[in-house]
């Protein structure tokens, strides 16, 4: 029964997200399933809190069901209004072709089997073992326990260390706890599955099936990604949203398809609903601004996308501010942002420059620890792209380097405020994890694989 309810909760989120993917114009079923859990869980968790804020509903089972129904209703309404019937939806639920049993022992099937074994293991481990991870107990899972008990979050003001990160993963835990299910960790397997499926589907747009599968397997077996598929931290969710979102926006840069912009912006926006401290979302804003001002196409849609990105980014901050005002928490209200602190503090030029070498070495050591296994192959891929003047891939490389620079700058700013800056190696490595899917995409989409590109030339 526990297994059934666990699967039901997450399947509801997945189903809602699948409808959202259809509404956004994703026709490929694997791709739609790949991003379904991300969209569904993101939208439902946002509504879950919005219902609390606007209508005073408790953060409980009723609110969860209402949020699910709201997303479902809006999606069905849009589909019906757009197409006058639900035929496309029914078609979308059908399998496009029967699963062929021919050539069972093929290279592709071997890769699929390995991926299934790895995913199943992640699911079993997350289903059978409880949450024991330090940061999760201190914050993410603890918040879910408070929500389950009180149906709200205001107690967090008194408890302290409660509102530092947006509540996405805590809400995912609560969705299980409010129905009396302890197995909240299963959500991370769904996110892991989404990352792999989404990555596969996006790579498959440009590559042969076996290349895309090999890419997904390389990503699945990356040590950092694999380890995070069985721990209840928010880094896996964050990297899934931000990396897939940026790849969608990269596709939009190349092909100008509306659906890629919409899904990309939504995923990047939702990444700020998982972790708001990293400014990686700004890369998406830069990409959109550059494209709409340079090509003067999809201008209105671009501006609307930017607005929705900004709204999702601001949502958590606005809600916590509302709570601080409501409970008159002056300390929290007077807390300055990093930018304000940076402008207020007078750093001498010598102090600013002094850290440069140390920070760079420290950054290099830790970031390299994350991408070290991929580095030699990535290096050859980039060289091949440069040699072949593969502008498409080089654009993604610029996004990759943008992230790289942002992580370095973040470490540098941190070093200006905290003497303990060189004790955050683990955090720095986790923050650098979005580089992994982008590196894998660059490796498996480089000029040496890209037959279409060669044929075109």
């Amino acid at each position, binding site marked *: 029964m526990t297994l059934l309810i666990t699967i039901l909760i997450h399947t509801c989120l997945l189903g809602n997200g699948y409808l959202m993917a259809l509404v956004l114009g994703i026709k490929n079923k694997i791709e739609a399933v790949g991003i379904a859990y991300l969209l569904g869980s993101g939208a439902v968790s946002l509504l879950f809190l919005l219902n609390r804020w606007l209508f005073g509903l408790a953060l409980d089972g009723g609110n969860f069901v209402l949020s699910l129904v709201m997303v479902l209703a809006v999606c069905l309404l849009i589909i019906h209004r757009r197409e006058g019937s639900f035929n496309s939806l029914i078609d979308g639920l059908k399998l496009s072709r029967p699963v062929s049993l021919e050539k069972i022992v093929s290279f592709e099937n071997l890769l699929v089997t390995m991926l299934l074994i790895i995913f199943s293991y992640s699911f079993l481990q997350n289903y059978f*073992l*409880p949450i*024991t991870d330090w940061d999760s107990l*201190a914050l993410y899972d*603890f918040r879910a326990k408070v929500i389950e*008990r009180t149906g709200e979050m205001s107690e967090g003001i008194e408890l302290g260390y409660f509102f530092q990160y947006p509540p996405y993963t805590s809400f995912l835990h609560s969705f299980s706890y409010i129905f009396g299910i302890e197995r909240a960790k299963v959500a991370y397997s769904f996110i892991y599955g989404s990352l792999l499926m989404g990555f596969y589907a996006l790579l498959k747009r440009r590559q*042969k099936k076996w290349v895309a599968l090999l890419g997904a397997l390389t990503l699945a*077996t990356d040590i950092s990604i694999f380890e995070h598929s069985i721990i209840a931290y928010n880094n896996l969710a964050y990297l899934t949203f931000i990396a897939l979102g940026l790849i969608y926006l990269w596709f939009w840069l190349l092909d100008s398809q509306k659906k890629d912009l919409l899904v990309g912006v939504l995923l990047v926006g939702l990444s700020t609903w998982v972790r708001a401290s990293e400014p990686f979302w700004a890369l998406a804003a830069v990409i959109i601004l550059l494209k709409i001002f340079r090509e003067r196409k999809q201008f209105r849609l671009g501006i609307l996308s930017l607005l929705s990105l900004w709204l999702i980014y601001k949502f958590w901050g606005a809600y916590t501010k509302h709570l601080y005002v409501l409970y008159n928490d002056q300390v929290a209200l007077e807390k300055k942002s990093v930018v304000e602190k940076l402008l207020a503090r007078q750093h001498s030029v010598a102090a600013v420059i002094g850290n440069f070498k140390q920070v760079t070495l420290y950054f290099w050591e830790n970031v390299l620890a994350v991408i070290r296994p991929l580095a*030699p192959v990535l290096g050859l891929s980039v060289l*091949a792209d440069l040699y072949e003047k593969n502008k498409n891939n080089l654009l993604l490389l610029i996004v990759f380097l943008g992230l790289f620079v942002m992580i370095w700058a973040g470490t540098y700013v941190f070093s200006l405020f905290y003497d303990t800056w060189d004790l955050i190696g683990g955090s720095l490595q986790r923050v650098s994890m979005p580089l992994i899917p982008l590196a894998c995409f660059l490796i498996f989409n480089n000029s040496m694989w890209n037959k279409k590109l060669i044929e075109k030339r």
Partner: protein
Amino acid sequence: MNIQKTVTSFLKKHRNFIFFLVLAFAGVLSTLYVEYRFQYEQFRWLATRIFFASFAIVLYGGLPKKFRKEQRRKVNFILISFVFLYVLNLLANLINVYHLDEYQAVRDFCTSSPKTCQTIVNTFFKLKLYRFVSLTSYFFSYVIFFLIGLLFSEEIYKKAADLLKNLPRVKLEYAWLFYLLLIYLVFQQLIFVFSTISKRVISVFGTLDTPYEQRWEATMGGRYSFGWMWTYMEFINNHTAENTIILIPDQAAPWEMEGNPFYTRWFIYPRRMVQLDENREIPTEADIALITYGIFGHNKEVFPTITIPEENIAEIVLIDRSTLEVTTIMDAGFDPEDYQDDWGFIRFRKK
């Protein structure tokens, strides 16, 4: 002169095959050696061993089709045998063959047929079957993925060659280097992931008999490791009301776990915590104080570190870490010297 010429031409003609054999044997033999000699250091020469195997896989795909066709059945047979042995090894570890006496069915069998039971035990030790049981998942993963690589190397080789022949500008050697490094990367990651899966499946299986909520202890290394945190805190929860205010140690060695208020709150919520005030005195609002010997650190010390007079104490409740037996001490003061390696709490007398 003639022999030298024949040998040279033979080596030249079969250089890829010889090279493949050398790499394959170097890889498999060094893995066997590591398994035999350094069983607890599976990462020894791992990068080199994986490089041997990856290079051998790449070379094998380029060997004559006829040769590979002849070998296919043999490779298949070895692969199936290895998978079978691996499953046997996994099962032997899952049921923990060294402690079969824990199973009632085994005990019944040995009571009814002691001779057969003894013969099986003797054979197990005589044939040194324990050597097989203790073979690591790294060893099996290495061989299995190497054989799978050989089976599909033709396909991978063909697919790669098919793509690579279209490259007009990037040099072929460069492309082959990329291909080799990629196989190396995937092979390395697969070995790590599948070995980890094997090991963890065994530990997950070991916890299944325990109710879900109690698995925390086993998952975190057991009662004599970090897992004690959950059991100890459950004891606190079971003996205190939800509005209890608990005095916990400062977050310093050896109390890094129970002394961290943001960590400990997960275990005892909705109970609240306080720590010693700036005068190193017990805050008046504290209802109980943990008696802890330090879960995390090695330099053990009893908390509270101060003596508490009898008139301030309503009771001292202790839990035996091994048996979980609970003892209540009334009418006694607290002196840390008397509570070395003890766990429990002091309930303060409220005035």
